[in-house]
């Protein structure tokens, strides 16, 4: 049985070696990246890299073992298989352990591979990054460049299992980014800008340059604010980061293991009725769009919160079996056994520009950047506290810059305290979209 695809054939060959009583999954991938960094008009580094890996999962009598290697070298494959088999004996018996099975859901056709990018000339990639540096420098005399970057990557994956899964996918993408430093006397503030595309011809370099300069220069002269309760307006990029923090709470596996504050809340109001949140990796506008999940099942659109009401949890084949439901095509691979995660979170936009939202706020803060979401937010308890910088809002107008403060609440309360959602949707180089978001009643801690 040859598919004409090298990776699929390799995965098939591994699985064909399964012994009676063994369930086997082969997960094979390869990819590459180009990373170009420009500094002061010259190439600072040029990285051209290829990588490949194979992971083999073996399940026998309810016990699971796993092994991987960062090569597809034939001589290493047998070692990986033997290690995975050996590891089986140390796993606990788990009645729900098993592989995904074909579920009849068809892949949504998507154009995840772009031939133009695959053949885009290196010299032009370098020229794009140089142009971005030049444009950014030209925006403002107070601006210096930390680095200007062009990055692209491609990846190809194949799955095969003894339970009948055969899936293959490939995708590529590219983005440019620029980091800025703005100086005023002894003070330095930083900013960043980026642009994403399926091909470099889709980049908007001018906008990336302007945003990188604005983010840094707007903060010059910023002071530490007084502590108080206030209303915050999140920039689209910050909204996307906020959505990512919520991701784990929608995982059916976290619900089953007592790690989600949404457990027992299905069908209840968990957010302001303005909030409709979906996970949709089949939307080609999403940077993390994909047609297959981490077990080779078709990726699909899942509604998480509809008009404030919690609609469903996400599942891999494991958590689905355990919860007596169906996989939602939400498996992800980070280590051995598949986990469960949102793949492409999308808040349904409201209407209005950021300016219009701000005009409704009599006293608040526009949050331009956050710092320390990984250290100050606990997605299990819901405690939320993050460092931030931004601009004060008074009587519907943005004013003086502020920095070195935190904003705090709980994730549960913040969802209920959403009072407006902007129509200024942005597709960002991450697994969530963004738009301006207004949240009431958070604590700002400063001087």
């Amino acid at each position, binding site marked *: 049985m040859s598919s004409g695809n090298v990776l699929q054939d390799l995965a098939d060959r591994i699985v064909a070696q399964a012994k009676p009583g063994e369930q086997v999954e082969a997960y094979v991938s390869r990819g590459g990246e180009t990373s170009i960094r420009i500094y002061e008009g010259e190439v600072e580094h040029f990285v051209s890299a290829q990588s490949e890996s194979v992971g083999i999962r073996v399940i026998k009598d309810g016990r699971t073992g796993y092994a991987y*290697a960062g090569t597809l070298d034939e001589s290493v494959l047998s070692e990986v298989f033997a290690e995975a088999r050996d590891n089986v004996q140390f796993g*606990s018996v788990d009645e729900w352990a098993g592989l995904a099975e074909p579920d009849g859901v068809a892949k949504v056709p998507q154009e995840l591979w772009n031939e133009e990018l695959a053949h885009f000339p290196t010299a032009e990639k370098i020229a794009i990054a140089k142009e971005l540096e030049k444009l950014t420098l030209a925006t403002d005399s107070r601006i210096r460049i930390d680095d200007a970057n062009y990055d692209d990557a491609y990846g190809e994956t194949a799955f095969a299992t003894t339970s009948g899964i055969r899936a293959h996918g490939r995708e590529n993408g590219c983005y440019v980014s620029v980091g800025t*430093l703005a100086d005023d006397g002894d003070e330095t503030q930083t900013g960043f800008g980026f642009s994403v595309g399926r091909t470099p011809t889709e980049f908007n370099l001018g906008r990336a340059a302007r945003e990188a300069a604005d983010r840094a220069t707007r903060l010059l002269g910023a002071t530490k604010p007084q502590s108080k309760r206030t209303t915050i307006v999140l920039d689209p990029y910050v909204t996307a980061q906020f959505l990512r923090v919520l991701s784990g709470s929608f995982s059916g596996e976290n619900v089953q*293991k007592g790690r989600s504050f949404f457990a027992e809340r299905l069908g209840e109001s968990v957010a302001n009725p303005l909030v409709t949140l979906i996970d949709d990796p089949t939307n080609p506008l999403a940077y993390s769009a994909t047609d297959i999940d981490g077990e080779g099942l078709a990726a699909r659109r899942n509604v998480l919160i509809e008009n404030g009401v919690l609609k469903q949890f996400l599942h891999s084949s494991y958590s689905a079996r355990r919860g007596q439901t169906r996989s939602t095509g939400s498996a992800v691979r980070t280590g051995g056994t598949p986990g469960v995660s949102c793949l492409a979170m999308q808040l349904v936009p409201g209407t209005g520009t950021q300016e219009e939202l701000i005009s409704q706020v009599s006293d608040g803060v526009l949050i331009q950047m956050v*710092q320390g979401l990984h250290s100050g937010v606990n997605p299990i*308890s819901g405690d939320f506290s993050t460092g931030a910088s931004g601009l004060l809002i008074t009587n519907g107008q943005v004013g003086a810059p502020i920095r070195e403060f*935190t904003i*705090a609440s709980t994730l549960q309360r913040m969802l209920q305290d959403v009072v407006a959602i902007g129509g200024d949707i942005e597709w960002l180089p991450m697994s969530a979209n963004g738009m301006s978001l207004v949240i009431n009643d958070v604590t700002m*801690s400063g001087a």
Partner: protein
Amino acid sequence: MSTLSELVGKETIEKVLAKGRSTGAGFSEIFIEDKRSTSAGLDDGRIEQVTTGRDRGAGIRVVHGETTGFAHTADLSEAGLLQAAEAAAVAAKQGSGGVVTVALGGVDTHPVNDVQILPNEVPKTRKVELLERANEAARSIDKAVVQVSAGYGDSVRRILVANSEGVFAADDQVRTLFRVSVVASGDGGMQTGYDSMGRTIGFELFDLYDVEELAAGAARQAVTKLKARPAPSGALPVVIKRGSGGVLFHEACGHGLEADLVGKGASVYRGKVGEMVASSLVTLIDDGTMSGEWGAIGIDDEGHHSQKNTLIENGVLTDYMWDYLRARKENHRQSGNGRRQSYMHLPMVRMTNTFVINGTSEPDDIVKATKNGVYVAKLGGGSVNTASGDFVFGMTEAYLIENGEITEPLREGNLIGNGPQVLRDIDLLGNDFAMGNPGTCGKDGQGVPVGDGQPTLRVKSLTIGGTAA
């Protein structure tokens, strides 16, 4: 496990380095890595799986003028390496610079870590048993403990580095790690506890430390927090327990003392060598030779010996940390801080074990001297904007200090401060130095193992990002 110099011969390495310079580049380097790792995870009362992994390959770096070309390959055959060297050379410079030869001497080593029991020689059953013991110990603390996850990990990383300037060095880095996370549930919702231990040693880690004690500590942390009240909002004095706050220095000044960031003018500490940048109580060291500690290395990932470097002495900035490129550019000596995550990454300036040495205060006196404030017993991660100096770090276990006594537990939150200001605001330093938890430091998308440490200390004012007025 064969040594890397057996796997890739010296003559091949010399050819690869010569090929790297064939387009006229001044410098070429090969970094070969062979890493075997084992991990085992327990969650929800079950050993989910044991995983073994193998990552092996080489990264080739070519520097032409100010431009670095880099390529990596998992193919360690001479043909595979030469192909990668050519790709790196072309990336650094289009054109031809003629024939170059490179000759190397013997392999240099600088062992600083003493490994008693190689973890790959220990039966996997014993690794799995540790997880079960931790699970039971955590669950036995209180019936409020509803979930426990525990992880075991070990790795044996062999590296060999050679460059066109004659560096030819090897190191074996063996690390063993154990971590426990606990969820406790009560009337007010869920709370979490976490603790970990890890050293650059072998399986003897578990003769030195007790997994039950670690697990019980994490469980008590979660259970205690069930009764926690919201953390204060605003500026207060903060006392940080010994061995828990090294991340403060890592963020408040460590990153800002990395010469690559300084060189680009992206650090608040640029141009400050010889100046008073901290309270005179503070002497800050970065020491890659600190045997057995999480950030200890024999050589860095550019083949330079690890070193003990004084960064701040009695409050005065003495030096930055350096890698090959930045040292060459500024005609400075290297400091053993050129590190990379794996053969797939370029090296850059990174910390090793970063710590503040003892002061003279009794830790109890530091608390007593604080009328009202916050006592942080365990810090989480942090991050810094080196250009502005603003940094945050999370407190995962903290208490109120009222009238000089530690009182009620607090919910989690971030603390925020400005590096240079906080360093000046350290007004009491204890005599009870301890190293902290094993850390992974992230920079530019790469993670490397780092250690940190400090005695109990007080910062006279830090902003606490809670919700209580």
